[in-house]
């Protein structure tokens, strides 16, 4: 059964008897699957059910780019029977699932087909669950279709049920005028009006009567007069005309007819269409200022369809934005801006703000892994503590406070802990790993925007909080206040806290006592500058990373050199390799020595340089012991 392309909304005559059905059909066509699903239209025969259904199909295919399928229930039943016999009902379901809008005509024939009904129920459920639109017509209300599964009735009643009544006088006139115009037929004045006065029960009868008049006039070669209409149409028309006649006097009826034709001629169709759209969107709860302004203007828009599409696009975007905001902040989603396409920009700003404030706090950097962290004597206590924290979050050391000078790997270890916790939690919540300075900046922004509650909630929702460079919160009262509450909330919820600083809590001046005591309540560990074995491993690793295969001699020489941080080792490795590339020579121990000790050709000076940089010799007691010119002074004087 194909959809007749001639049956469209623009040639469906709307009157009081079918206004609701037409409005519902248009709403369904504008937003298939979103409103009134399923749409159930019932009426006596010949009142326009199939026209409306086909109009939906044509609109959806042409304007919405979606597919539509029109089937009569008979066809559907036949297909189902074949599929059941062949055991291919799933294939049938699959075929219907490809359709955006399924239009089923004449479902009154469901009576008695129990097996068909249960299969239909399955198809309807699947279609609706997938957001596909269902439109159904019948010649009687659902309650009057005998012997139908209660579940199917419930399903079909779940959307909107509308009926179409017999056309009123104006509708009959509009249909007759439209048909005459379409067929290029002209009657004497009063003939069409006389026909319109007869209350036919359906449009097919009316059009049949018009056809009879046309045939009579064309074949008889005689122009009909108004008083010939009823005799030409015969007995039924006579009965109906007699019943109709007393209602309106001839003069007034004729006046009405002419006014109807004048109104139809002069009313601007684009305004009618626009006002229908306004009515529809208002009923959906949206402000329509954008359309009302155009309606109030004297000039028709260049393209009404573009305007309506633009409006619909704005509503779609608003709905999307509202959904997103509702997920982030239900209270904010109730704002009026989400129902006014004129305020789309404002709604977008709400979303942006909600996202900014409600998005998970910054997480650990994936670049810093535990595997990539070299362990040595200078940091092994911190690393063991970190491993324990990952293995037993909030159970062993909570909070874990790591301190040490800059560049010894605190940030690396902090992020590695964060990655470990995120992995162990299995996505059970975001792990916040944030530098203290960013924490402060975010709080300031939240204060400016009045979103502190959401900002606070964002951290309280975290699975763990890892705060780097915590020394930056010292002296910042409001930040410490917020950190205190976040700390307590997370701690109470059994969530892990890890803090890193360049000095131990006791030495953080400007840190409130209540925070200090909490920071010290778990485990405070330090990380120091890498010792010799760690330096050797780090040099070996970084040089290999740079494409140099270090020899034992090379590593021995380099690891002898005292450094303050891991960063310094990376800097030295980079410098050596870059210099070798510039000089176009291979990296050798001699080259390294020449590079690092430009004055160190003399082994004695090199030894002195090495000694000067060796922590052993940096011991004040030893230095004084070497410096003979201070020999006259007592060591104790220098202490």
């Amino acid at each position, binding site marked *: 059964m194909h959809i007749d392309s001639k049956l469209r909304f623009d040639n469906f005559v709307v009157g*009081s008897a079918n206004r609701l059905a037409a409005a519902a059909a248009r709403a369904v066509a504008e937003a298939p699957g979103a409103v009134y699903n399923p749409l159930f239209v019932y009426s006596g025969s010949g009142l326009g059910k199939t026209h409306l259904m086909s109009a939906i199909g044509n609109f959806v295919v042409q304007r919405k780019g979606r597919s539509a399928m029109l089937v009569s229930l008979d066809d559907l039943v036949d297909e189902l029977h074949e599929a059941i016999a062949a055991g291919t009902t799933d294939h049938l379901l699959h075929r219907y699932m490809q359709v955006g809008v399924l239009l089923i005509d004449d479902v009154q024939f469901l009576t008695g087909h129990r097996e068909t009904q249960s299969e239909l129920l399955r198809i309807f459920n699947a279609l609706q669950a997938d957001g596909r639109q269902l439109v159904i017509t019948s010649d009687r209300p659902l309650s009057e279709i005998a012997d139908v599964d209660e579940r199917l009735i419930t399903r079909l009643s779940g959307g909107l049920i509308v009926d179409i009544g017999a056309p009123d*006088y104006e509708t009959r006139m509009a249909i007759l005028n439209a048909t005459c115009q379409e067929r290029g037929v002209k009657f004497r004045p009063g003939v069409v009006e006389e026909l319109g006065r007869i209350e036919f029960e359906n449009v097919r009868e009316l059009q049949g009567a018009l056809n009879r008049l046309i045939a009579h006039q064309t074949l008889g070669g005689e122009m009909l007069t108004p008083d010939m209409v009823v005799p030409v149409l015969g007995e039924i028309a006579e009965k109906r005309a007699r019943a109709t006649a007393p209602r309106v006097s001839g003069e007034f009826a004729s006046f009405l007819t002419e006014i109807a034709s*004048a*109104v139809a001629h002069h*009313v601007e169709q684009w305004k009618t269409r626009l006002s229908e759209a306004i009515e529809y969107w208002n009923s959906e709860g949206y402000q329509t200022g954008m359309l009302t302004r155009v309606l109030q203007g*004297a000039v028709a828009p260049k393209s009404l369809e573009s305007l309506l599409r633009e409006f619909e696009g704005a509503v779609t975007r608003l709905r999307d934005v509202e959904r997103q905001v509702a997920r982030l902040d239900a209270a904010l989603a109730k704002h009026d801006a989400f129902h006014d396409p004129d305020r789309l920009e404002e709604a977008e700003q709400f979303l942006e703000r909600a996202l900014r404030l409600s998005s998970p706090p910054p997480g650990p950097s994936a670049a810093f892994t535990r595997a990539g962290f070299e362990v040595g004597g200078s940091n092994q206590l911190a690393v063991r503590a970190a491993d324990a924290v990952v293995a037993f979050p909030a159970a062993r050391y909570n909070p874990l406070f790591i301190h040490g000078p800059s560049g010894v790997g605190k940030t690396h270890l902090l992020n590695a802990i964060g990655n470990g916790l995120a992995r162990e939690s299995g996505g059970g919540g975001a792990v916040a790993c944030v530098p203290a300075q960013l924490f402060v900046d975010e709080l300031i922004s939240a204060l400016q925007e009045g979103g502190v509650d959401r900002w606070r909630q964002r951290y309280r929702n975290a699975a763990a909080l890892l705060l780097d460079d915590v020394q930056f919160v010292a002296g910042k009262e409001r930040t410490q206040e917020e950190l205190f509450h976040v700390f307590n909330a997370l701690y109470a919820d059994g969530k892990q806290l890890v803090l890193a600083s360049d000095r131990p809590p006791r030495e953080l001046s400007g840190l409130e006592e209540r925070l200090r005591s909490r920071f010290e309540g778990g485990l405070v560990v330090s990380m120091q500058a890498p010792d010799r074995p760690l330096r050797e491993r780090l040099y070996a690793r970084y040089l290999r990373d740079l494409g140099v295969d270090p020899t034992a001699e090379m590593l021995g020489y380099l690891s002898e050199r005292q450094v303050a941080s891991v960063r310094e080792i990376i800097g030295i490795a980079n410098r050596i390799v870059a210099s070798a590339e510039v000089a176009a020579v291979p990296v050798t121990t001699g080259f390294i020595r020449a590079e690092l000790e430009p004055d160190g050709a003399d082994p004695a000076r090199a030894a002195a340089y090495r000694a000067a940089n060796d922590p052993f010799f940096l011991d004040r007691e030893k230095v004084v012991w070497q410096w003979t010119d201070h020999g006259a002074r007592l060591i104790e004087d220098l202490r």
Partner: protein
Amino acid sequence: MSLVNYATREITCKIVYYGPGRSGKTTNLHYIYGQVPDDRKGKMVSLATQTDRTLFFDFLPLDLGTISGFTTKFQLYTVPGQVYYATTRRLVLQGADGVVFVADSQAHQLDENIESLQDLHANLADQGIDARAMPLVLQYNKQDLPSDLILGTSLLSDALNFREVPEFSADALHGPGVFESLRSIAELVLKRLSSGAPDPAPMAAAAR
């Protein structure tokens, strides 16, 4: 007044019957009232003196039903013709979408007809309305009277219809010409819709 409200899908049309005293304005409304089925007409409000002359005005609301999807209502008013009711005439004329000028065809009433027509123009001008933009039809009533008592339509046309608006010979008491006049003014008013011409009143307000 808003003639077509696309938002509420209503067409409301205010037609004023204007003319000298005893020219037959109220008779026009009575005839229409008698022809309209009960379910289509509201209560006709008529405030008259003891001698049956319109004291203030007549008002007949007509519900034409749904036309092209619009609930269409006509409101028919008459003005008191007597010279001393100038204020009432101005009030009734306010917001009119069209005017049916009912002239008395009796020969001795010619001056009153001309005076009333001038009064119409003056009242429109007072309200800042461009009379040329106001839809108007002329109805020469009482054409059923003996011909020696009345002026022919061509004479009346020469005297009154200098704007060459639609004109109708009428016998309001018995009906001829009544609905023709109403139909004609309704069409003129509706035609203004598609011509895109602004309402006379706002245009006048802007001119002020």
